[in-house]
């Protein structure tokens, strides 16, 4: 996965993501693609969650999956989640759950609850940072005011780090793939460097949903695992998504 929250020179916030999934779940040698990733693409749906006929939040999801990996609460905040690898991973959480220790939350149920119930960027950030999880994760959160963009790096129990947009430091965007931002990514899977190179080339003056789509369309940020790209703009309350393909040659991940 790759998630970005960027602020343009006028203070508009844009949130974009590639949802990559299906690694090692069956390689189709003939078509040079991952079997499960290809089977997930027809399931991609945009959802408008309504209560009293009013939109509560919008999301891009897979039909049949009740949790949320990508969503926007119009005019309030936007949220995506990227996988985080850790030895203290989800399987330990599941074991605890089976053994009756159920004070943690399933990751995508938390994101769904935050999108459904939180009423501000700060409240969303609080719940994403404080709620115990069954599995580690990265939460990428965008808001509706200048500077409201952060990556929350979560272990199952704690928030290890919160990395924010900081215009004074020249940090006009935050970008997350699947590795702690203070560490080098796995050399076999460095999507961060090319993504940041393209963001820096685009510059803050030119960032928009369109140019964010360009960054997310550049290999290897776009790869064989990429099922969809979603673009969100909180100030306009918009969410749009596109099913992706990665023509050969293309990185398997």
């Amino acid at each position: 996965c790759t998630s970005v929250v960027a602020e343009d020179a006028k203070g508009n916030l844009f949130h974009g993501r590639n949802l990559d999934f299906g690694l090692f779940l069956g390689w189709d040698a003939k078509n040079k693609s991952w079997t499960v990733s290809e089977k997930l693409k027809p399931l991609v749906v945009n959802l408008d969650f309504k209560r009293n006929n009013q939109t509560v939040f919008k999301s891009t999801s897979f039909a049949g999956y009740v949790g949320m990996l990508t969503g926007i609460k119009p005019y309030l905040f936007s949220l995506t989640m990227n996988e985080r690898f850790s030895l203290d991973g989800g399987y330990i959480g599941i074991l605890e759950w089976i053994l009756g220790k159920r004070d943690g939350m399933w990751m995508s149920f938390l994101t769904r609850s935050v999108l459904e119930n939180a009423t501000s960027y700060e409240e969303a950030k609080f719940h994403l940072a404080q709620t115990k999880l069954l599995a580690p994760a990265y939460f990428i959160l965008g808001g509706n005011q200048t500077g409201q963009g952060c990556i929350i790096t979560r272990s199952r129990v704690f928030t290890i780090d919160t990395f924010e947009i900081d215009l004074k430091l020249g940090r006009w965007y935050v970008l997350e793939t699947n590795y702690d931002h203070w560490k080098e990514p796995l050399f076999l899977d460095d999507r961060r460097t090319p993504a940041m190179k393209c963001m820096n080339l685009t510059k803050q003056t030119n960032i928009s949903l369109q140019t964010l789509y360009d960054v997310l369309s550049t290999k290897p940020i776009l790869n064989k695992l990429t099922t969809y790209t979603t673009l969100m703009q909180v100030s306009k309350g918009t969410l749009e998504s596109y099913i992706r393909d990665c023509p050969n040659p293309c990185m398997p991940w």
Partner: protein
Amino acid sequence: WAQFIPPYTEDCRTDMYPPKGPTFKGAVSWYTVDLDLPPSKRWTSVITDKKKDLDNMIQAIRDLANAFVPSGRLVELVDITLPLMVNTLPNPFKDEIKGIAADSGIHLGEIILFNIFYEVFTV
């Protein structure tokens, strides 16, 4: 410019929007999920449209499981054990998942697996 050896990096793309060409596979349909409905009924319109694709995707996972355990025991294990835990899941997720299983005709255990796949995948 692109390099033809892994990681196949290329020059930063431009003018990709509006989406077109070989990296754009298609638009995404919109559905409304009515939170005023009972949880078990919220996904009926989505699942009515997508149940064939959902079954195809889950079949791919069944095939993968059977590739590891040809006897089919692994799939059986999912079908027997996961429904036992469905009542430990919090609402509305529990009833929504049950509703999806009913609407799709796919085994409850396999819909539960799909919904907790993030945690399971770390295995």
